[in-house]
């Protein structure tokens, strides 16, 4: 086999070159993407990543399943006298815990993104500034939904019986997702402030872990020492767990629902602008 004597074969004026020319000839610039369309497109990007890296879903499915089984069968009898009774108490709490733990990964993912060149391109596009962040959280919300659904289906299979039926369960799931969306902004801020993905992960869990355990997710706060009980009672995560229980049992605690929604709104109002600003000014 002989090769060209001078240089590696450069394609002459071929079909490829013609295609290049035609692809380069100016196309009229379309009107800018709307804020909603840009955010949804970033949400689609998040979905594609789940499709290509399905292992991402492991952390939102395996961990909560482990927690549910462990707490129900290991501690259930000791805490509530029977595993059946404890499952009734803990399932809404595990739902809260597993979804909130997942929010930490939103910050980790954002921090990971920043180490890649693609963020520069996003930041140089003429789009609504918060769109990449909002879109990523919309994509994450789908992962929260998957995690929450796994818990609920497993709970039902193990014998959890919601007094308010499916409607109550869906309402509780929706409330938890709204709260998680608000909380995610805290972790995206952390993800932008901290230097590495693992730092974002550690700091995130250092915050969310004690906050979740110092709530009424696992035990009735009346059994706690006074000072601790006082803290647990004002912890928004307690309110979220109480509200979820109420919605599932059909004894809706409207006070707790309002506190949970107000917390989500407040976190979004404070941390969404901070995140957007940090993202925009990231050198």
């Amino acid at each position, binding site marked *: 086999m002989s090769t060209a004597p001078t240089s590696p074969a450069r394609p002459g004026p071929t079909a490829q*070159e013609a295609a290049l020319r035609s692809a*380069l000839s100016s196309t009229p*610039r*379309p009107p800018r993407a709307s804020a909603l369309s*840009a955010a949804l497109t970033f949400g689609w990007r998040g979905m594609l990543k789940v499709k290509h890296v399905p292992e991402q879903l492991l952390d939102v499915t395996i961990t909560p399943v482990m927690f549910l089984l462990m707490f129900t069968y290991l501690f259930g009898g000791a805490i509530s006298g029977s595993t059946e009774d404890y499952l009734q108490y803990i399932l809404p709490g595990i739902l809260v815990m597993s979804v909130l733990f997942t929010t930490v990964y939103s910050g980790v993912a954002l921090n990971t993104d920043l180490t890649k060149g*693609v963020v520069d*391109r996003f930041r140089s596009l*003429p789009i609504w500034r918060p769109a990449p962040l909002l879109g990523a959280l919309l994509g994450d919300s789908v992962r929260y939904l998957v995690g929450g659904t796994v818990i609920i289906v497993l709970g039902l299979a193990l014998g959890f019986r919601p007094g308010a039926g499916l409607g109550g369960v869906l309402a509780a799931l929706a409330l938890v997702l709204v709260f998680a969306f608000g909380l995610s902004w805290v972790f995206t801020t952390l993800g932008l402030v901290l230097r590495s993905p693992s730092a974002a992960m550690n700091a995130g869990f250092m915050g969310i872990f004690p906050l979740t355990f110092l709530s009424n997710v696992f035990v009735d706060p009346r059994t706690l020492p006074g000072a601790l009980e006082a803290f647990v009672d004002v912890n928004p995560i307690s309110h979220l767990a109480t509200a979820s229980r109420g919605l599932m049992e059909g004894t809706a605690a409207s006070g707790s629902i309002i506190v949970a929604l107000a917390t989500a709104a407040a976190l979004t109002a404070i941390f969404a602008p901070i995140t957007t600003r940090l993202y925009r000014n990231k050198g």
Partner: protein
Amino acid sequence: MTTHPSLAIEATGLTKAFGDTQAVDGVDLAVRSGSVYGVLGPNGAGKTTTIRMLATLLRPDAGSARVLGHDIVTEADAVRGLVSLTGQLASVDEDLTGRENLILLGRLLGLKRAQAKARAAELLEAFGLADAAGRLVKNYSGGMRRRLDIAASIVVTPQLMFLDEPTTGLDPRSRNQVWDIIRALVAEGTTILLCTQYLDEADQLADGIAVIDRGKVIAEGTPAQLKASVGSGALHVRLLDPQQRPDAERVLARELGAAHGEPDPAALTAPCVSADRAAEAIGELSRSGVRVAGFSLGQPSLDEVFLALTGRPAEEQDPETATVTHEEQPA
């Protein structure tokens, strides 16, 4: 600041510091519309920081710039609507396929779903990536990634394109492909600001060059002017018989003013300003009975440019990219 409509980029005194490091220290640039302007310098000279300021990713500490008539600080959004950036790190999403990357960009730039898909297919075909369209970008070769990166920059044709070291780390063949794409872009009227470490790349593509060092422009002109100011290229000669090297050295020194042997006992080098002078010198060698195996006329390297302009070699300041070797384009 007065605005010249024929200038795509007009920067005055751009300055940016990171902590104690003065990354860009008062850079002035004037880039004509429709031209390719090369910014030449070693790693850490301030090229990328300059591009990032002009592409509105960084706010300058001082100075100002207008890109396509819009101020990069107060009218950043208008600038973003007209330019595109191909960064030094490949600015594509490695966890998506090539096709998905282009559709994503198309949608973000306002194309309808069907338009975005059609445009992605057209670009993948044009850039020779149709076969790899459904593969994840993390499995692409360096050259494919670069081509996708440039394709992503022209999903909607920009008026001005920033290209930050588009061929660093590429093999010669991929490098030629990228150069062909850049030439085609220019032929279609896009203005290009090209950052590079390679004088021959700037020479091949650029109409004007600014040499940047330690955050300052230290020389500016056409490639020809720059090479002339550097002095010369070099004539490299290989002899059939190493024994004849002293004779060859004498002849070349007489013809070209100087000559010195290379580590290879059959090779020697002489400074040379033009191909005509080189041809005369080679002719003189054969007339004197020196048998020549081969010869080539080399351009001054960035190092030689720097040596001529600053009296010291180009400094590699970034240890990570400093190891990337520059492979010569095949003759």
